[in-house]
């Protein structure tokens, strides 16, 4: 028994757990470096960069192997985690976002020499949490992993110790976050108490069998509580109140990272919840089935994109604006899950993954612009970027391309992602049951209207950058070459996902198990 367990752990699980192990090793290295004074020799930023880049590389190699060998899901550590195609995909995104953020903070001088190890430890902690969340296979593990990615996040938000705004933001985030995890824990206990198991696979089997004697309502409630917790991480309306404050208080680099990595990971949990539910619950059982869950998500999605856009419209602070923008984008991304829940359309999940990759690039790019502008002008408002576009072409170009991507215009990944989730939502309305059709098509119409509304939000940045006169100091500092590199990297990713689509779409299709002709 012990021997089998050891064998399973050492040979089966640990190799597949390698990306996480690399991140863990980096964290340990960072902490040891501080104790031993080793961080004076090699800066913590370098260690963190190498670590996150390696983790990203390892995950890419895993993804590559899975793509070559076909789809294989492997349980890890006796079923608490599992190594799934989707999970590995998300790990790549999370590690890449971490590497990008480390690279950027190295030049924007966010953490000084003393704080460096702490800062990068927290950043990698969030990354690790996101990776675990993406591979959680057990409700308890889901809760723990989400906690793992939230707690370092609170620290990242409040990292600028002197700033009152920062502290307030961190506190707000912490209070909301604790509430959300409490809710999730409660939901877990309801489900586990009713069904006697908290393993997602086992729950799925029990619910699909339709033999649930009683307690369907309790399970439904549990699912709703879990959804609320996940929606908090996704900042879906009405669980979004924390995000504008948290993003405003946080430094732009951290806000950018927090707006992508945890979000993408939380989507995996949302998809796992849908997969756990039965496609058709018997009437009177009180159990929520996937079409009804899809309708619920459709409502959240429509509310998020609308309120996100409307909220963003009136913001003067760029980070608040981007916070609302990421609320509305959480809405668009949720459309992929809605399509999956409503009609079992896995193409929607492929669209979700594609859109996520583009979203990561666009958001990191735009937040990087904000971070660089802050370093150059000390301002983070829409007025601070006035006239910057012609003075610093790289900043202008990156902002325009990312903004165009967030509006959803070609030739950017934002357009392709949007079209993929839109197509899936339309198809779900076409192929789904009569009950879900109005929800899907209504959501699609709402998304169309919001695409137009989004124009005003993102063009404000573009307009300020190019149309308004520059009135800052005469001698702006130089944009650091590494910053230029970061911006160009994000820009290249946004455009590449919009032009050479097939390589990535083949991976996302394979990841969710859509056969391609």
């Amino acid at each position, binding site marked *: 028994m012990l021997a089998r367990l050891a064998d399973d752990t050492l040979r089966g699980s640990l190799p597949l757990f390698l990306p996480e192990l690399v991140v863990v090793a980096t964290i340990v290295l960072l902490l040891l470096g501080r104790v031993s004074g080793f961080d004076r020799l090699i800066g913590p930023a370098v260690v963190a960069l190498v670590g996150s880049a390696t983790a990203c590389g390892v995950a890419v190699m895993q993804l590559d192997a899975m793509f070559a060998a076909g789809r294989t899901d492997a349980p890890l550590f006796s079923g608490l985690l599992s190594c799934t195609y989707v999970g590995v995909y998300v790990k790549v995104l999370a590690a890449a976002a971490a590497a990008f953020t480390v690279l950027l903070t190295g030049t924007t001088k966010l953490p000084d020499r003393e704080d460096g190890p702490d800062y990068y430890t927290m950043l990698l902690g969030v990354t690790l949490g996101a990776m675990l969340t993406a591979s959680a296979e057990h409700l308890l593990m889901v809760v723990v992993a989400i906690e793992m990615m939230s707690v370092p996040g609170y620290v990242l938000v409040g990292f600028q110790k002197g700033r009152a705004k920062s502290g307030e933001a961190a506190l707000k985030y912490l209070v909301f976050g604790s509430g959300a995890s409490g809710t999730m824990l409660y939901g877990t206990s309801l489900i586990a108490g009713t069904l006697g198991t908290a393993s997602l696979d086992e729950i799925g089997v029990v619910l699909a069998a339709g033999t649930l004697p009683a307690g369907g309502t309790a399970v439904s409630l549990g699912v709703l509580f879990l959804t609320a917790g996940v929606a908090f991480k996704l900042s879906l309306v009405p669980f979004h109140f924390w995000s504008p404050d948290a993003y405003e208080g946080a430094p732009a680099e951290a806000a950018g990272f927090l707006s992508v990595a945890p979000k993408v990971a939380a989507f995996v949990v949302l998809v796992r919840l849908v997969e756990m539910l039965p496609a058709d619950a018997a009437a009177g059982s009180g159990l929520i089935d996937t079409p009804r869950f899809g309708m619920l998500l459709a409502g959240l999605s429509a509310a998020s994109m609308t309120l996100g856009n409307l909220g963003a419209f009136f913001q003067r602070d760029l980070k608040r604006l981007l916070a609302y923008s990421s609320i509305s984008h959480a809405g668009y991304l949720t459309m992929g899950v809605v399509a999956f829940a409503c009609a079992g359309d896995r193409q929607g999940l492929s669209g979700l993954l594609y859109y996520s990759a583009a979203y990561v690039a666009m958001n990191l790019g735009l937040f990087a612009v904000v971070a660089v502008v802050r370093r150059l002008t000390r301002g983070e408002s829409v007025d601070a970027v006035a006239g910057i576009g*012609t003075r610093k072409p790289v900043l202008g170009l990156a902002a325009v391309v990312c903004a165009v991507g967030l509006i959803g*215009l*070609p030739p950017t990944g934002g357009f392709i992602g949007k079209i993929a989730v839109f197509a899936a939502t339309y198809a779900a309305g076409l192929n789904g049951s009569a009950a879900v059709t109005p929800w899907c098509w209504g959501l699609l119409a709402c998304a169309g209207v919001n695409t137009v509304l989004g*124009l005003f939000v993102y*063009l404000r940045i573009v307009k300020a950058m*190019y*149309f308004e006169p520059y009135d800052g100091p005469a001698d702006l500092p130089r944009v650091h070459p590494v910053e230029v590199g970061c911006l160009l990297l994000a820009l290249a990713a946004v455009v590449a996902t919009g032009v050479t689509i097939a390589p990535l779409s083949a991976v996302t*299709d394979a990841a969710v198990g859509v056969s391609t002709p």
Partner: protein
Amino acid sequence: MTDAALLSLVVFLPALSAGAIVAFDGENRGAIRRFANLTTLAVVGLLFGLVLPRYLAQSPDEAGYRLVVDLPWVPGWGIGYRLGLDGLSLPLLLLTGVVSHLAMWASAGITKQTKGYLILFLLLETGMLGSFVALDFLLFYVFFEVMLLPMYFLIGLWGGPRKEYAAIKFFLYTLVGSVLMLIVMLMAYAGSSGVAGGATFDLPTLTAIGSGRVDTVEFSGKVQCWAFAMLLIAFLIKLPAVPFHTWLPDAHVEAPTPVSMILAGVLLKVGGYGLLRIAYPLFPLGAAYFADVVVWLGVVSILYGAFVALAQTDFKRLVAYSSVSHMGYVLLGIGIWSPAAADTAAWQMGMNGAVFQMIGHGITSVGMFFLVGVLYDRVKHRDMREMGGLLTVMPRYGGLSIGIFFAAMGLPGLCGFWGEVFPVLAAWSFSPWATVLAATGVILTAGYMLFAVQRIYLGPRYIGPRGEQLVPMTASEKWIAGLVMTAAVVFGVYPRPVFDVAGPAVARITADAQTGVETAEVRKVARAENEATQ
């Protein structure tokens, strides 16, 4: 060079040049401008030197296209890099090349941030050229959208006093249309999932489904009506037709002269082209259902545009509203289809006229906007009440202007004539009332044109400010206006080239649409019988 390489080169050459211009020194305006000029000239050269002969030498494939390119782009999602030309797109493609070059030539007066201007200009040209050669719905959409952002900047940065308002209005209107088109695109994509090879964005395949030539798949009547209505709005915004036209006067008036030339000369045609290439072939049932709407919107646009033009005092606004009126003939010619009458001869005539009107208006509106620009460069205002007597001060300018005005007015022997007279004549069998009203529009057109000629060119003398600035046209200005005038005369006297090229394509579109409606009827009857026997 293969067809794929040739068409790709034509489309992407401006974009590549735009990339190359980034490397230029922004202060060296002359060099950048020469390079950009050379690029647009090279596109014209490629179009007339290689594309046109090759087009004439090839025979069309079974879908009616030549120089067809079909390369995989996103095979998993049915998206292809599909290009091709037929009699509908070829004239518009050539027009785009020529108008772009003329507009580039006319850009000599742009001295503010020349580098950025030329980069955006060239990106815009790639978007325009691409729209007319794309045979994949998604690719068409991509090119369609690629035009948006450069245009937004070109109006918003180099435009007149209300440039920002005009730029955002243009962007907003077009984006509304684009989003509607996006949804239609997804409807067509989802609806085509039954064809061999899975759902696709391939326009020839979607056309085959729309015309009922695919046995297994069809777009239902309801889908077609919704899809057609949404596409109609999308393209009517672009065309533009009343009541979706309000962005146009602002955009045209605020845009700098070369950009106005492109807007009127090419961008409006994308609307008509989209109707002919996508809306009618894919969704004939919807087109039949909305035939009256299309025709009457055309008539209303003709009359409304003309009436509003009559009331203008701003020279450029007058030309802008004349565009609304003139594009109304395009809509009228496209729309006059009565599916109940199996004979499509009248419809073909109208549609041929519509295609000709797009070319003719491309020539005259480019000329008129250019002439407005020439005048504005000198006296810095466009108020027609303060003008007069230009024919004596600038006789060459006055002469060319009056010639181009007459061409726009539709005087026989000039290029505006065919595009107005064909749709109006053909409309008779559809609705005599529409014909009568549209014909009235011709009189109104003559009214506002002559009124403008009288106020600007005739009269004893110029009474506005800066009269001393009224110097004769420069050599390049004479060349541009002269070329436009020549084209107006050539196509007015000998319209055959356009009709000969466009005729087969138009015949095909009309026949396909008619077949589509008839097949749908047959299938409906068969289904009813099937249900009755069960």
